[in-house]
């Protein structure tokens, strides 16, 4: 009888940007039910934190327009009367301005805030009393950090049992591999870990390699687009996340090489109004719908110059702060009407032109010089809130901007839909999704969108991977490590990133069979390396103390991969994995002679749908099942309350995986 039940295990996986959590293990493992932003807001009282931004309502100057706004204000007004000159507060679930991110590059930078975040996660999930917790640790956490976290969980939540597992180890549970190189591309950093024979290789581990995360790519986009006004960091961040941002394989030519070929030639009208010739970035970038504006572009442009400072992505936020909002809205309104007129004319006009206009969007992204993505403007949201604009005003602004899809709570663009869908489906409303609900606009961008990884991130990452594997103590294992590369993490989500990284590795490091040994390569020149023949049991790798210490991993992982999914590992194929690959294809003792991505077992439909970027969470579920249910603490895979009482936080080092 296992000491815990399936549905009473809480898994928390904190990250610098996103913290994943889930209560209970479903029959078939699903992506994390809770995705929470890893940030808190400072509360009024020092040392206390709030999960949502609490904003002081400014009412002094704009109380008039507010009152004639909507009904809700009436309620607030009455509250106000009660509290006299007390400040009025409101929750702002959209804004992240002034947020404190307790984890920086995986490291816990602000402990009180981190504790607050954990508390928030715990309270959000709200597990029943007596729920054990499995926490996924960032690789960069120090031993001391492990102790502190352990102490916090035992003393704050009084958990009956607590497990701590390295995220790279968790990933290997998801893949069920005994040898793997885990490349976890995060926000500001990447972690590279070798796991050899179920043992995590601490020495030479690539920990929090700086400038190798998604942020590095955003910064690169900022740099590339710095010439174009309005492309702030936020815009670039969302551009990176949008599906139009792609890293092209080297054999695909960048479409920008022949400027404005398709669009320009076929449809002069479209070219004129979109600036597709790319030469003048100052021109207005319309959205896809109003391309063939036809008759009167001159007047429009003339008007726009007043406020929009001849940019498509203009800084509306500053207009709002400048107090020109109503003018701007009026102008937008005019524009819209003109557009509508233009469209009608368009409809009456030649069908041929319309077809021509419709053609370019059908091209795949990598063949188009320009493409559009949807941008949610949070800066504007913040500016408006600060200026005390009512929600009525916000709606007006939204519809004014609504060239593109203009519902506030709209389905997100495909890429992020992937990440948020499970949350939406599984729960209704409890989930604090990533920010959404800012103002949406379509923005057009040129070939810069293919250059996100140009800033040397791939080279840095490749070098770090090479270094990490070369540091693996067991020379004979390195070939296997190269053959089971796992690239995951939300930073690697950019389309084409994994392929590009693999390509970089291949081009730089692969050792080709030597022509000088082509005849001798058939000779067993690696006789000196032990031949793994007929090994039916995994050989104990480390003599002495290590057995007692880490040896526990082995049976656990075996149990994970065999007991639970017998169909996947027909009789002892796990063993097969550990034995194959001892032979090198030439007489090279050097590695890598081949580089391959590891394949993940695809038996969890929900995960398959979403993608395995967060496979470490899948591994955490597998591990939780093994540690708390199958193994039930026999291999000391977690720390019990009694263990904690006896050993104190120090004891976690013996249970940590």
């Amino acid at each position, binding site marked *: 009888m296992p000491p815990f039940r399936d549905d009473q295990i809480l898994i928390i996986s904190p990250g610098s940007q996103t913290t994943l959590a889930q209560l209970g293990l479903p029959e078939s493992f699903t992506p994390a039910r809770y995705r929470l932003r890893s940030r808190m807001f400072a509360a009024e009282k020092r040392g206390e934190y709030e999960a949502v931004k609490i904003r002081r309502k400014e009412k002094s100057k704009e109380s008039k327009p507010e009152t004639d706004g909507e009904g809700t204000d009436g309620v607030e007004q009455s509250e106000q009367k009660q509290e006299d000159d007390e400040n009025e507060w409101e929750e702002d679930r959209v804004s992240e301005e002034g947020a404190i991110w307790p984890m920086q590059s995986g490291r816990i930078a602000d402990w009180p805030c981190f504790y607050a975040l954990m508390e928030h996660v715990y309270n959000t999930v709200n597990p029943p009393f007596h729920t054990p917790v499995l926490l996924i640790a960032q690789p960069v956490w120090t031993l*001391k950090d492990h102790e502190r976290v352990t*102490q916090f969980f035992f003393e704050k939540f009084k958990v009956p049992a607590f497990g701590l597992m390295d995220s790279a180890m968790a990933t290997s549970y998801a893949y069920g591999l005994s040898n793997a190189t885990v490349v976890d591309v995060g926000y500001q950093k990447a972690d590279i870990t070798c796991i050899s024979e179920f043992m995590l290789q601490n020495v030479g581990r*690539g920990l929090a390699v700086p400038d190798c995360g998604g942020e590095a790519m955003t910064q690169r986009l900022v740099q590339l687009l710095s010439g174009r006004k309005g492309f702030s960091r936020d815009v670039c961040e969302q551009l990176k996340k949008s599906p139009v941002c792609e890293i092209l394989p080297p054999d695909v030519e960048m479409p920008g090489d022949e400027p404005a070929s398709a669009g320009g030639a076929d449809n002069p009208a479209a070219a004129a109004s979109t600036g597709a010739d790319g030469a003048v970035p100052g021109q207005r970038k319309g959205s896809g719908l109003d391309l063939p504006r036809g008759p009167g572009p001159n007047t429009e442009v003339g008007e726009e110059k007043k406020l929009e400072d001849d940019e498509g992505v203009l800084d509306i936020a500053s207009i709002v702060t400048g107090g020109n909002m109503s003018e701007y809205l009026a102008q937008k309104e005019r524009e819209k009407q003109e557009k509508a007129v233009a469209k009608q004319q368009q409809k009456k006009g030649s069908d041929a032109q319309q077809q021509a206009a419709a053609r370019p969007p059908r091209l795949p992204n990598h063949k188009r010089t320009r493409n559009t993505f949807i941008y949610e403007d949070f800066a504007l949201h913040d500016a408006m809130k600060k200026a005390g604009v009512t929600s009525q005003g916000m709606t007006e602004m939204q519809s004014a901007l609504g060239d593109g899809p203009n519902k506030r709570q709209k389905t997100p663009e495909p890429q992020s839909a992937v990440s948020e869908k499970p949350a939406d489906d599984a729960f209704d409303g409890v989930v604090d999704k990533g920010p959404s609900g800012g103002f949406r606009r379509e923005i057009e961008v040129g070939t810069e969108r293919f250059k996100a990884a140009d800033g040397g991130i791939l080279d840095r990452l490749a070098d770090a991977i090479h270094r990490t594997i070369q540091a693996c103590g067991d020379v004979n294992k390195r070939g296997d490590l190269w053959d089971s590369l796992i690239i995951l993490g939300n930073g690697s989500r950019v389309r084409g990133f994994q392929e590009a990284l693999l390509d970089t590795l291949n081009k730089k490091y692969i050792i080709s069979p030597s022509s000088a*040994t082509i005849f001798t390569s058939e000779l067993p020149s690696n006789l000196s390396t032990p031949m793994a023949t007929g090994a039916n049991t995994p050989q104990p790798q480390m003599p002495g103390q290590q057995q007692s210490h880490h040896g526990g991993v082995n049976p656990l992982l075996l149990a994970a991969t065999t007991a639970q999914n017998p169909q996947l590992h027909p009789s002892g194929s796990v063993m097969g994995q550990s034995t194959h690959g001892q032979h090198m294809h030439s007489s090279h003792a*050097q590695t890598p002679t081949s580089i391959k991505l590891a394949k993940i077992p695809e038996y969890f439909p929900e995960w398959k749908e979403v993608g395995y970027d967060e496979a470490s969470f899948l591994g955490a579920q597998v591990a939780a099942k093994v540690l708390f249910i199958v193994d039930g603490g026999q291999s000391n895979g977690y720390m019990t309350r009694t263990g904690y009482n006896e050993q104190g936080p120090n004891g976690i080092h013996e249970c940590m995986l």
Partner: protein
Amino acid sequence: MALPPTQAPAAGEYAGDEISALVLDCGSCSTRAGFAGEDTPKSVVPTNHASLSSGERLFGENAIHLPRADVEIRNPYNADGLVEDWDTASKLWEYTVTSRLTGARQTPPTRNGLNDDKDENGDVNMEQEAERREDEQDSPLAEYPLLMTEQPWNPVKAREKTMELAMEEWGVPAFFLAKNGQLAAYSQGKATALVVDVGHQNTSVTALWEGMVLKKSLHHAPLAGNWLNNQIRAMFATQQPPVPLVPHYMVKTKQPVDANSPSNATYVQFAKPPPDSFRRLEEERVLTAFKESVVQAWHGPGRLEAPPAPHAPNGFSNLDHVRSLPPRPFEMPDGWNTVFGADRFKVVESLFDTRAAYPSSDQPTPKPEDAIPSLVNRAVSACDVDTRPHLLNNIILTGAGSLIEKLPDRLQTDVQAMFPNPKVRVLANSNAVERKFGAWVGGSVLASLGTFHQMWVSRQEYEEFGAGVVEKRCK
């Protein structure tokens, strides 16, 4: 010796069961640190550091391998394997401990915010807190007793300085300094042994009798890992055609080419290339790969370049034998590749037979008495006759430099040839990690022993006797 939780442990008595000690093993190539009782050091940091033109020093793997123009790669150790730049060394050691083990700031559990006794207003006393912050900044390692290692030939001054550093700057509650040869023996569970430690800068020999270091036996020579690197460089230069050594960071992409043909690679264009010291560091990475995959020691018997034995058929010499073995290929980062036959044996030979050394411009010709078997000979000869059979029967080979294929076999045959009478036994742990970190593992064993508690030099003693106490206590 369980104390009731209300009672603090008596001063000078450190319960290893409750507070684990830190073990810091400093070498000229890498610095290892971890908590006592663990099986491998959790923090291994290269001793090389990046020194920016702004004067800032950066430590750790991530910092030193970035190619940039304004960086110099430096090492706080001198050629003799002793600390030269104390300021940097202390920062580096601190980094090694804090980066992976203790975290940058120390907060004892009583004050880490979990157990705060808030005053009436629920506020933390700000002044106290500020004061505490300052305290912590000053003594990053104040929480744990510290065991450090040293080279056996470490001069008194350096030992005292180390102690001072630990006590004054880090504020450790207790300290001990142990010789790394001694610790390597403990890692194998031996109290009587002859430890041969092949490191990066130096190979050292330490004789140990029932746990005590025999001072007369201490010998060291610069024929070690770094020497081997230079031998490989010299060998590359003498090859026909010379072997181009292009480190990874210069290569963008490479194409497979035939053996010995010029490489077909595209190179990274630097506006201002990184300085030579950086290039050298990156070249060492290639050389390490070469040592791991190609280099092999001639296993003996006899020297590699010995004339053919009189009874050998057709004058078949050791060298001829080696030549008949299949050569091993090696590919450079730029794709250039070739096979190495006898040369892959020859580069190691100078460790055993100094006459076989490749002449190298930046390395002095080695002295014959510095060869490893001669070192062993000198050490054993300096010891009492009665001890010799025991020592020779327990030769422990350790250090990352000893990981060259077949090197233990060669040492065995050479020493056996030198001392034909007693039984010679070379013990080399087959686990590469344990051999690399032999001294650290020994330190981990030692510091977690219950009986070691009385050995610690406590803060009180230091305050009473000064740094000189290290000479008395840490022998």
